[in-house]
């Protein structure tokens, strides 16, 4: 549970500010997931580079739920336990599109600067 930025030993990097919401929303696009699955999925898809601290995942989920971008319902998990599943709402999908576009623009711009310099 290191607090140091860019843990070079494991090759993991911490999430830049503001990207957590985007990742959660994107992960939920295919369908409802519970919290643990969200964090596992982010880690897998990013080839173990990104990891979400549990300490920030759940507060973020609750915050997104409050904003109405995701909604929660209780269901049964693959290991047959009661788990809380989150899914995107309609405004969540809009938000995801918006944030994706913003992110693309941002990375493109940063890329251009890095290239051009």
């Amino acid at each position, binding site marked *: *549970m290191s607090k140091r930025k860019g843990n070079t030993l494991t090759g993991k990097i911490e999430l830049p500010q503001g990207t957590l919401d985007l990742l959660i929303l994107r992960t939920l696009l295919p369908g409802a997931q*519970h*919290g*643990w699955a969200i964090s*596992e999925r982010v880690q897998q898809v990013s080839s173990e580079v990104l990891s979400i*601290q*549990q*300490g*920030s995942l*759940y*507060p*973020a989920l*609750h*915050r997104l*739920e*409050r*904003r*109405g971008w995701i909604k929660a319902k209780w269901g049964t*998990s693959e*290991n047959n*336990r*009661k*788990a*809380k599943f989150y899914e995107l709402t309609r405004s969540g999908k809009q938000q995801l599109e918006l944030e994706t576009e913003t992110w693309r623009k941002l990375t493109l711009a940063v890329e251009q600067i890095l290239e051009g310099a």
Partner: protein
Amino acid sequence: MLNDLRYRVRALFLRKAVEDELEEELRFHFDTEVEKHMRAGMTQEEAKRRARIVFGGHEQVKEDCREARGTSVIETTIEDAKYALRQLWANPTFSLVMILTLALSIGANSAIFSVINGVLLKRLPYPQAERLTRIFLSSADFPKFPLNPFDFLDFRARNRSFESMAAFTRGDVQLSSASEPVHLSGFYVTSGYFRVLGLQPQLGREFDFNAEIPGNGLQVILSDRVWRTQFGADPNIIGRKITLDTQPYIVTGVMPAGTEHPGNNYHAVAYGDSVDVWRPFPFEGSSNQRGSHFMEGIGRLKAGVSVGQAAAEMNAMMTQLGREHPGNDTGWTLLVVPLYSEIVGARQRMLFVLLGAVGMVLLIACANTANLLLARASARQREIAVRLAMGAPRVRVVRQLLTESLILSLTGGVLGLLLALGGVRALVALLPADFPRAHDIHVSWPVLVFTLLISLLTGILFGLAPAMQASHTDPKKGLQGSRTTTASRHQNRLRSALVIAEVSMASVLLVGAGLMLRTFLNLVHLDPGFHEENVLTANLSLPHAQYKTDEQTAQFYDNLTNSLNTLPGVESAGAGSDLPWTGYDENAGFGIEGKKPAPNDYFHARYHRATAGYFSAMQIPLLEGRFFTEGDRKGARAVIVVNRALAQRYWPNEDVVGKRITFEDEPKTDADWLTIVGVVGNVKDQPNSTGAEPAFWWPELQRAQLDMSVVIRTRSDARQVADSLRAAVHKLDPALAVADVKLMNQVTDASISAPRFTFVMVSLFAALAIVLAGIGAYGVIAYTVAQRTQEFGLRVALGAQHGDLLRMVLMQSARLVVPGMIVGLALALSMGRVMQALLYGVSAADPLILASVAFVVLVVALIASYVPARRAANADPMTALRAE
């Protein structure tokens, strides 16, 4: 937006469900994580450990989630409050002691604040009251003297500082009604009197300048009270004729309810007391007669004119009047006093002393509660360490503990307010009779706000230190340690300091109580110069319309006292112009045969009138010569009786009986001289006056007065003659009201009610303070004794005697109490000057009082430490060692 609200509302009101869901969600995550690791081949133990590391602080995550829900502030407060209530409930005695001490001290503060709010803070019930001032004359002999009517007319005509100015003087009347005649307190007022006050009649109008012309004056303005009670609120009363003092008066106005009398000094009616009739003041006689002073001046300053500017202008005017009317108008300065200071001025100091005293009680209660909380905080170190180890942030712990102290102080505040509700009523009943604005004292909104504020403030004050200290708990130490968590040295020092502070403040209050007790006793045991037991008094005022000549008046009082003297059980009966200790202040100048006054001075004294029986009924002793007799009538030699103070001032070391004085500027015949026939003992104006004023008495038979106080001395209970008195008066004049029937005891009691009040209040506060300080000392000593049980056991095992241990604990107590006491006594000495004005016959540095206070404090300390000391002395070496 709507979703947000719905979410928050659910989170807030279904908090339990939401919390449970969160717990379940997090547990699911944790378990799944563990399963994952176990699938990868770890043992369960190792898997759990890994999961825990990744997971982070469980409490911290929950806390962050709550915050994300956006309800955390309210929610945590509710949670803290619930937790706090559980904690307080778990230790009911402890909580009860703290809540009760807080309730008592907050209640006392609210009650005193109610008085201060009603008397000092509440605005006077006149528009722009800050511009109202009273106007007095002043000289070396008479610091606050009424005005002469014709001087007033000049002031009114010439001044440029005042928007309006009026004068008024007492003039009670008798209203002839269907049943018994009613005595009403009233005033003669100049035109525009109510306009000065900013008031308007609800019916009719106020007197115009015409009404001031003698002969035009049979008009009257009634109070709302009299209009309702005597005239059935007749809407057509304006223009109706009513009978006052057997004469027909035309009602020209009715004042609204809530018309407050601004208070006056000469024949005083206190501020706010009921005044029922106002009549126009007729300016009779010549405007060159400026020797008599009986008008009370009041003025409304022009906007922007200061009191000082007005006073300067008025004094310049007085100097000019002195040139125009040499003699009567020379030697005076003018006082312009804001009405507010005139009404509350004298009582301000007393109220501030009481506020200071009650504030100290609150501080002591704070120190005490902080002390108890500190003791408990060290016992709760373990609990707090656990919470910290679970990841609760320190701020949360501080908040938690502060919530507890706020719950204590707010509960104390609510209870205190209930106490204050009852207390204020008792307080008002106990207030001195002449206390200004007593009817304005209620538990009102400002009092509620004040109570809430001091409750919050005390809660934070006594809660902060223990909370900060507890939050510095080291989670490791708290968890490792044995069960006997010992307080740090630092904490013990803080607790001792609190006790020392408590003891010192309690000592200050005890000194104050001692001083007030001595003052009160001095006044009670004072030889008043008369004897108040078994004396009934009443006031009569004969209407001038009916008793036109001195002979008629003198005859009435002669007949009345004669018939009273024949009543069974009556020892002696008489009548006098006034009763002792009622603030009588009538003065006259005179000439003395064979003596000349010093330049710029003149012979003067209080004048009174008395019938033959007055002195014996009041038991004012005869020192030389004789009292008046039936023979001192009109036509016989003119005589007076003087008091010892007058004899000593003007005839020191001379035989006074037989000396003569005169009221004529140029006495010619023997008839112009009055001969002194007797010297009586001194009676002071007020019990706490420094000395008696020189005074003389005219015999009522020679110089009659319409308004007299009847005095009847009986062999047993004087109340029994009240009905006979009424019957005797009505036999002589059925239309006469018998007013203010009172025992002389009641009159004297009223005159020492102010020091009695201060004494009772300060003593109550001091008693509360010393009990609280005692509890505080007990708490600290009992706690340290409990901490040192093992040490004491060891000492016993090593051969220490009971006496040694007893002495050890008592010494520890002395180390707390003696410094506190010394600081307290020093403080009391330095604050003595504040008290001095309230004291009588005792110095603020009275050694006896200081010594008694020291003694009381030591005894309390001994009592507080005796029980813990006994416990220490009886320490059993075996139990002590086993505890380890």
